[in-house]
């Protein structure tokens, strides 16, 4: 299956006042068209950094040290920046943020902000090229395209079950609940008819019943339109609900990647096993993982889980294990993968 997005050997570091943190260590990840991939891991594992590196919006202090991000064969890191910003970002790849409360400007109506997005990112806008154009601020928005875009906006708002879409466009963001705002975010992510949506913990800030509605809505719309999704979360339950395949990360390294059912029933990597075991169960004995997540400033060599792993050997401490297939698409980076017990 040809890959839509393929991240290979991506390394990212952050300069902090306490030294340089190795946040991503040679990450490789591929997403096929129409596939929903879950990027799972505890805070500090680098999943959000990976998502933001693909989007090209690294926070201050972040630097890409190596690797490539191929999008339909072309490496985004070496393409002309303006071209990526005009053609890829917000058109081929769109974004759903985690915090619905702060992702829309409080001072502009929802309609203004959506139409601003459509002015630049509408599928009806031709390929722009880079040279010879009026500066962005003064460039006009042809009336015909604007009307067509507006209709498309109303359709998608209905699709995400926003009540009275006409009136909604005239209201300010603070007049919507968290759940409704996240529906707006989903609508804005779908409008440019992207090939890939990057959703960074989209339901973490929502109550469980609203989260269920949003997960169901997102899965239905995505599957209906064949859009692939890179979905980061620290909540294993939401990954189980939404994803076709799950990748688990720990301290900046990807540990295991498997189709969802295989991932949860037959985890091969010791960390995945311990993670699933520490989920609270009814009244049973609670097992946690001894030790602490290592600091990424001067991280442990080789497999970064070895200080807390029961099966760690000299090999694990020496060199990071290569990823190898355990069973079909189920791949793991470990010298001593757990048998399919």
């Amino acid at each position, binding site marked *: 299956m040809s890959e839509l997005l393929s991240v290979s050997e991506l390394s990212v570091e952050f300069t902090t006042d306490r030294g340089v943190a190795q946040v991503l260590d040679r990450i490789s990840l591929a997403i096929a068209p129409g596939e929903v991939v879950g990027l799972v891991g505890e805070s500090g594992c680098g999943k959000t950094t990976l998502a933001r590196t693909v989007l090209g919006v690294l926070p201050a202090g972040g630097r890409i040290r190596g690797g490539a991000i191929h999008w339909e064969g072309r490496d985004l890191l070496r393409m002309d920046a303006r071209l990526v910003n005009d053609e890829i970002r917000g058109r081929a790849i769109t974004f759903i943020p985690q915090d619905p409360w702060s992702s829309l400007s409080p001072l502009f109506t929802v309609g203004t902000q959506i139409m601003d997005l459509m002015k630049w990112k509408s599928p009806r806008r031709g390929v722009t090229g880079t040279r010879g154009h009026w500066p962005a601020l003064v460039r006009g928005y042809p009336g015909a395209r604007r009307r067509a875009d507006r209709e498309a906006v109303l359709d998608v708002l209905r699709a995400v079950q926003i009540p009275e879409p006409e009136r909604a466009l005239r209201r300010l963001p603070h007049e919507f609940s968290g759940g409704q705002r996240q529906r707006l975010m989903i609508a804005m992510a779908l409008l440019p008819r992207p090939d890939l949506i990057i959703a960074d913990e989209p339901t973490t800030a929502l109550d469980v019943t609203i989260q*269920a509605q949003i*997960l169901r809505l997102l*899965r*239905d719309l995505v599957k209906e339109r064949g859009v692939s999704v890179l979905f980061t979360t*620290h909540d294993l*339950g939401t990954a*189980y*609900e939404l994803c076709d395949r799950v990748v688990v990360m720990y301290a900046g390294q990807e540990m295991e990647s498997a189709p969802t059912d295989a991932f949860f029933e037959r985890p091969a990597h010791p960390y995945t096993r311990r993670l699933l075991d*520490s989920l*609270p169960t009814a009244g049973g004995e609670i097992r946690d993982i001894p030790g602490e997540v290592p600091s990424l400033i001067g991280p442990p060599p080789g497999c970064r889980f070895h200080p807390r792993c029961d099966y760690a050997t000299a090999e694990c401490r020496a060199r990071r294990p290569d990823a190898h297939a355990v069973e079909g698409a189920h791949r793991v980076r470990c010298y001593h993968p757990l048998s399919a017990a």
Partner: protein
Amino acid sequence: MSEPRAAPLLEVVDLARHFPIRNAFGLRTGSIRAVDGVSLAVWPGETLGLVGESGCGKSTLGKTVMGIHGPTAGEIRFGGREIGGLGRRERRTVARHLQYVYQDPGASLDPRWKVRRLLHEPLQIHTALSRAERQEQVEAMLREVGLPDAHLDLYPHELSGGQQRRVGLARTLMVRPSLVILDEPTSGLDVSVQASVLKLFRRLQAAFALTYLFISHDLAVVRAMCQRVAVMYLGKVVELAEAAVLFEDPRHPYTRSLLSAVPVIGGRRVTRDFALEGEPPNPRDIPTGCRFRTRCPLVQDLCAVESPPLRSTGGGLVACHFA
């Protein structure tokens, strides 16, 4: 309901806490009935879960019992003594036995104080122990919550989320309370850190014979920790039962949709068959009669007329005409 053992440690009768809504002129134009008539009891050594979605009033209930908010109506009896209406001074004597652990541990610690002073303070307030005696208890408690002595000389912002949570807990346990109200003790924690904190809560409960009022929106955590669970919706308790009964055979329609919204790894998928529509109504204008009727699959005319009382159904209490 198992027959009551000894007298309850905490008993709340028809407790209400309303917050006034003021318009531009500062005139009261209505009130948010955050807690609107709640009655429940907590027995010594027990962990009572208090679950519900944000805005259901569970934190407000916790804070009102703790005396952070004065009650608008109803009674709070702690160890048989009415403490709802106490003045600030008498209230402080109760503070020794009834403690509150905050949701955001970092914010509940004075950023300018080192951990050492933060742990000494409770003893300075409530006991006449000498400095050395206090230091001894502080170091013992620090080990109990699993922190190294070196952390005594750190400032709160120099600790991780999990460590701040342990310091917050240690601070409340210094005065050997009997009832501890835990407000969302695991929110924002990663799975493994959450597991270690829950293990700690259990160990401390045994070590100090504690009783917990465990407030949380995370049903899986409540199921693992609590013997009995109360479900709240818009300021009222809609169902209260033994944890096993409530999770296996939920009676109230809201409890049922709440449980059906929680992803169960390996089980049925919410994205295929979860059915609760809409969002909780605005707390400023609560529907008449039963509050859940605007979203309830079993709704009938009676629901709009009469607010169902909490009545026994053998396995537990439920507030619904048709459950």
